[in-house]
């Protein structure tokens, strides 16, 4: 009885039989094509699967990390169509045709890391490293957003729209607040981001 509201269908079981039949004929899987780090990948996916799990389990791209799995920590951050997002909250089926870039796709392909990855190394911007791929993808997204003129919570509302927003330390801290670091490497992360925007 306790679970009845969850299972009940409008109109009761008898009335819903035709609809049930229709629904059971519908698939719970779909073919999905994602372009991941420049390579087109087509997969047959259960609709329930999050982008993060597809990247890690199907495509062996384990850079994006599962921290909270609820969009609260930022460890799963990747870029979709150039914008930073929490891959744990995105159903892969909804991303058909989208372009995904993970931390593995940031280098130049010849073994050279991205300048922001180098800055994280130079500035010792991590301790355990678990949040680092998400921090790096998030910071790249944030730098692009500022260049496009996106304000943040700490931006002076009087600053004109449509022009790049300069990033001081307060701006970097605010814009990266969706990425938690339990080791507390925040000061050095801000240093590393400052290195690449100078």
């Amino acid at each position, binding site marked *: 009885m306790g679970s009845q509201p969850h299972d009940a269908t409008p109109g009761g079981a008898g009335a819903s039989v035709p*609809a049930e039949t229709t629904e059971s004929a519908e698939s719970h899987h779909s073919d999905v094509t994602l372009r991941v780090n420049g390579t087109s990948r087509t997969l047959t996916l259960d609709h329930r699967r999050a982008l993060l799990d597809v990247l890690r389990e199907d495509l062996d791209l384990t850079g994006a990390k599962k921290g909270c799995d609820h969009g609260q920590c930022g460890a799963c951050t990747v870029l979709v169509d150039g*914008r930073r997002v929490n891959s744990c909250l995105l159903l892969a089926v*909804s991303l058909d045709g989208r372009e995904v870039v993970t931390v593995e796709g940031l280098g130049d392909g010849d073994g050279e890391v991205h300048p922001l990855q180098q800055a994280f190394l130079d500035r010792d911007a991590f301790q355990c490293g678990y949040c680092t791929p998400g921090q790096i993808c*998030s910071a790249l997204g944030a730098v692009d957003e500022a260049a496009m003129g996106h304000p943040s919570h700490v931006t002076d*509302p009087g600053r004109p729209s449509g022009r790049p927003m300069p990033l001081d330390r307060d701006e970097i801290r605010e814009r990266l607040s969706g990425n938690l670091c339990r080791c507390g490497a925040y000061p050095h992360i801000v240093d590393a981001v400052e290195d690449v925007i100078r």
Partner: protein
Amino acid sequence: MKPFAYVRAGSVEEAAEAYATRPGARYLGGGTNLVDLMKLGVEEPRALIDVSRLPLDTVTELPDGSLRIGATVRNSDAAAHPAVRDRWPALSQALLAGASGQLRNTATTGGNLLQRTRCPYFQDVTKPCNKRQPGSGCGALDGVHRDHAVLGHSETCVATHPSDMAVALAALDARIELYGADGVRSVPADRFHRLPGDRPERDTEIRPGELVTGVVLPAATAGLPSLYRKARDRASYAFALASVAAVLRVEGGVVQQVGIAFGALAHRPWRAERAEAALLGAAPTRAAFEHALDLELEAARPLRDNAYKVPLARNIGVDVLTRLAPPAATDLT
């Protein structure tokens, strides 16, 4: 998570049709709340109707000076839009005070309005919650309720609505545009969300199958000074303990127009109509703002552990109104 069918809608009509023919369907926008609730077992849709690619992704200036923000415009894009920043700044500020950069890039205008409470009892299927399972009781009433409502709550539900955006829309006299089986209609933003009463499972006035298609900011509040201020436990990326959005027009030394809405105090953005009535025609002094907000908050009925919200809301409200008033006016105190 239970298996579900997935349908990507190409038009508003197609979305409504897909919803109507599938029992247990839910619309999927950015999914930042819905997918989370599915992981938690709070939502168990049998079909998702993906509306995130509907052609509702533009911000449009209308001939009468109002502005329509389409339902699939991402929160980050709405916040950065020059017309929003210049003419309805409280909305841009409210959006930027919410969530994180990643979430704002995903979350949609329509989805933001329809997000559910973050009450921990609602989000935990092992706990009683009248909103999630009508008749099961309210765990928060005598439980952990520091973040909960002080205004307009009932014995059945003390949850608050978590949106920052909706608070600014309420203060700015925005309207919510809806499409459904009965056609197109629009609802004032400050009447879109409900108080719980004895039906806490209903968050809004939306009808089954209706789809939010956009939000319209009216010419009547365009270009007026407006602000949003949010108090929270940390400087960024946290839900409000109390927040306030206000718009103020002062002419001839008196308040000619005012809109005030509080967030995180009630089951919906709390439009401070009593305070507004007290301020119309009055000189915009700090004393007048204090008096008006004290009048408004006389209705507050704090729970055991959240009485702090009443002075907090009052003080950030006075601060925002004082900053919106012409500098000379507030010197008169």
